[in-house]
């Protein structure tokens, strides 16, 4: 069991020292000063280093092994991205420096925006949103502003498929909308009849992912956009699954008015243990005036930022977004180019179909036909017949050094596992994973106890989540 750094603290130990103060020390009056002791760790550098090295050994990154997390696109994070994001010319510039002194940063932002426009078929991008959900919130605010500007105030509802990621309805609600759900048809796409019944002059927008959360491309997408537009609404694209279609199809051509992208998914920026991500938002010309302040614009060849215009939705945060994350994505796009980006999507779809082909006889795929970059299997039959659930199989995978797929999402599939290998995995890695999953399937029938007992090789086993939620201990107790 790892000690907390607070438990390793010893009074008087020091890691960093500063130079001597070279001016007079300022004296603040007593009533302004901190009275309670500050119990931050006191630790020597060598112990600090060992502490974090030990912790890093209990972490599992894409660099450590296979990570087929559906909907997360855990592809390889190129080292070049890290080097470029560490360049002093990017890290040592203050966001409020005179514009003339940061032309490189602005040009980089412009290059990224232009590339994203071309990849998605949109007319403008803001790089300010700091995550996918942040982008969704931004996009929904822009849509709300668009309708309000046209005095179309009846539109209080946003339609979201029942298979959507939780951030979709949550972001729509934050933007002041009532969320209504549309059912999926038997092919996993949007049920057109159900959609027609929901569309009216109270609907502001439809939020969609395409390919959807089942890993399937909705062949009716053009009709869907047409229907929503005919009813006076806008169509919003959740770009989480863009990895399947780069260079092959574009949301802008499908009729989407606003999109967000997840640079930490499709564009290889690292997940960092949960963030930072970056969720740029792109839009068609009709929505450009609603872009947030701090978005980059160019006028007569000169860069500037959107300021306090009446139409702008305002600010999603301070400054311009996760700049270094955006630099990583730009590096990636420059490396891959038009040919590499298309190849990425082709290989992502190939890898997913290959895995599906290797597993479909044992793990029923929720919907028939080729998948895109990910696929969903249901373990309901396995659970009914052996008692081994999707969660149990996931725990068993840990003993094989494979990160489990996404569990229990989307909720319209029971005992779901969503598998997305990504394009950066070799056939050998896929073959190994397929074999492990096939072995586990056999084991479930042969000796389910072994799987129900998993994992057995990890440092800790099956954390008590109920205890954690009933009696939250959220920080170190110094007493």
């Amino acid at each position: 069991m790892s000690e907390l750094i607070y438990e390793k603290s010893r009074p008087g130990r020091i890691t960093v020292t500063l130079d001597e103060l070279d001016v007079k020390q300022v004296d603040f009056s007593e009533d302004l000063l901190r009275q309670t002791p500050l119990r931050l760790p006191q630790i020597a550098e060598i112990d600090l280093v060992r502490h974090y090295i030990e912790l890093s050994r209990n972490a599992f990154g894409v660099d450590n092994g296979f990570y087929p997390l559906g909907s997360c696109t855990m592809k390889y994070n190129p080292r070049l991205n890290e080097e470029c994001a560490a360049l002093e010319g990017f890290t040592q510039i203050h966001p409020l420096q005179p514009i003339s002194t940061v032309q490189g940063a602005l040009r980089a932002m412009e290059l990224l925006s232009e590339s994203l426009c071309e990849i998605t078929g949109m007319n403008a991008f803001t790089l300010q949103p700091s995550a996918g959900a942040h982008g969704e919130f931004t996009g929904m605010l822009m849509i709300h502003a668009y309708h309000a500007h046209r005095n179309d105030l009846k539109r209080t509802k946003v339609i979201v498929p029942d298979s959507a990621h939780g951030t979709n309805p949550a972001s729509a609600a934050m933007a002041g909308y009532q969320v209504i759900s549309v059912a999926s048809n038997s092919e996993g796409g949007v049920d057109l009849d159900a959609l027609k019944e929901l569309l009216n002059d109270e609907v502001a927008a439809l939020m969609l992912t395409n390919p959807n959360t089942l890993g399937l491309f909705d062949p009716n997408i053009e009709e869907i956009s047409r229907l929503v537009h005919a009813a006076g609404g806008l169509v919003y694209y959740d770009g989480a699954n863009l990895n399947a279609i780069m260079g092959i199809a574009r949301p802008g051509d499908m009729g989407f008015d606003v999109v967000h992208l997840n640079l930490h998914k499709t564009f290889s920026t690292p997940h960092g243990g949960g963030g930072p991500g970056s969720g740029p938002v792109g839009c068609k010309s009709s929505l450009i005036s609603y872009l947030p302040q701090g978005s980059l614009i160019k006028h007569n060849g000169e860069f500037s930022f959107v300021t306090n215009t009446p139409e702008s939705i305002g600010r999603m945060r301070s400054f311009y977004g996760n700049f270094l994350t955006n630099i990583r994505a730009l590096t990636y796009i420059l490396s891959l180019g038009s040919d590499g980006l298309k190849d990425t999507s082709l290989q992502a779809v190939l890898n997913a179909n290959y895995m599906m082909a290797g597993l479909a006889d044992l793990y029923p795929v929720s919907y028939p036909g080729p998948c895109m970059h990910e696929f969903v299997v249901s373990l309901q039959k396995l659970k009914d017949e052996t008692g081994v659930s999707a969660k149990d199989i996931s725990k068993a995978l840990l003993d094989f050094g494979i990160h489990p797929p996404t569990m229990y999402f989307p909720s319209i599939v029971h005992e779901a596992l969503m598998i997305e290998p990504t394009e950066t995995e070799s056939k050998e890695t896929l073959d190994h994973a397929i074999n492990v999953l096939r072995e586990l399937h056999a084991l479930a029938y042969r000796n389910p106890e072994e799987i129900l007992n998993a994992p057995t090789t990890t440092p800790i086993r099956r954390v008590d989540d109920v205890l954690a939620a009933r009696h939250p201990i959220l920080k170190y107790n110094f007493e």
Partner: protein
Amino acid sequence: MASYTVNTLAQQQAMLEKIGAESLDSLFTAVPDSLKLQRPLNLPLGKSEFAVAKKMKELASLNEVFSVILRGAGSEKHYIPSVVRQLSGREEFVTAYTPYQSELSQGILQTIFEFQTGICELTGMDASNASVYDGASAVAEAVNMTIDRKRTVVLLPDNLHPHTLTTVKTYTHWSNIELKTIKTLNGRIDVASLKEALSETSACLVIQNPNFYGLIENVSELSAVVHAAGAKVIVSSNPMTLGVLKSPREAGADIAVGEAQPLGMSMAFGGPYLGYMATVTELVRRLPGRIVGQSLDLDGKRAFTLTLQAREQHIRREKASSSICSNQAHCALIAGMYLAAMGPVGLREVAIQSSSKAHYLAEQLASIGFKLRYDGPFFHEFVTDGPLTSVTVENALHKRGILSGLPLGKNGMLWCCTETVSKHDIDRTILILKEVLA
């Protein structure tokens, strides 16, 4: 083309055979022909690592890196210890996903738990979340935590960072929250104005301390007034200042938030930064975002896990208070490392040096005619009104590699000093300005 795809054409062929597909294109039959892009993307072809690195270095070189920086206003240059940079760059920390699989992620979970502990120590609060996007959105999320059916009015002084003010407006625009401006007097919140604005519909007062002008607010007095009216106090602090200043909890805050970029992150043209949110026990379940908690595993060992997830979007969906999913986890790791590397002595020293140097700069500027705009104690930032226009000051210092304070209007300037500014830098600055005045 520096593709990161792996399989050879022969392997791809073998895979297609196993699938029973003719070609890669045949996997895309679901995409209607009308949508299939009939041309390559109108982007340059892929480049070698060498070429890309060259291009990115070119772009980086077009930015001017100032050797002396006297500008803050939400982004500060502090010394980043080498251990922080090196250790945070370990690939397991960089390339790991969100630690939903506890068995595989105890290391990540522990770093978050340690970060939460550090934030609680600085702020005096009972619990912290695992981060939000930045300080401005942290204030917006905090405001939301204080709203209930009867209390929907939020009091915002006009001396908050302008980006924070705008972000709160944007976040609350379509809600039933009413924003009310509190006037400031001599740069600080005017208590009389506050008392007038408070009512039984007030949800909270947001105090930035030190405020946008660098001035230290009387948080204790303000908290007493706000609490007497039954409303809550949100304090937004630069966490570096908490090495010396009274913690938000000591001063009466219910929620402590802020921008933690000064804790080990470079200025990086505005991001990625780090919003922190901490609060008292009664309000813990209103915190947005991920939270790590301590528990036990099957064998009774201490183990960490993401907890209180029923607050979040993946469970509550449209009923969640926030849609936040991905946060600033890696930046929180950096902040935790920074706090450990600096320790209480080091952080206190950073705060003492930053404020002392700022006061020295203020003194020297005053001696050549740049008057302090406001009286009352300030920490490491302050505003002057000068005998020279702010543009003149900025240009004169720029010529000599110094980034001046932030221009505020025609003659005003918001200055900032950190421990990275030396007496020599300050003296040089004064000399340059003296030359211009002559």
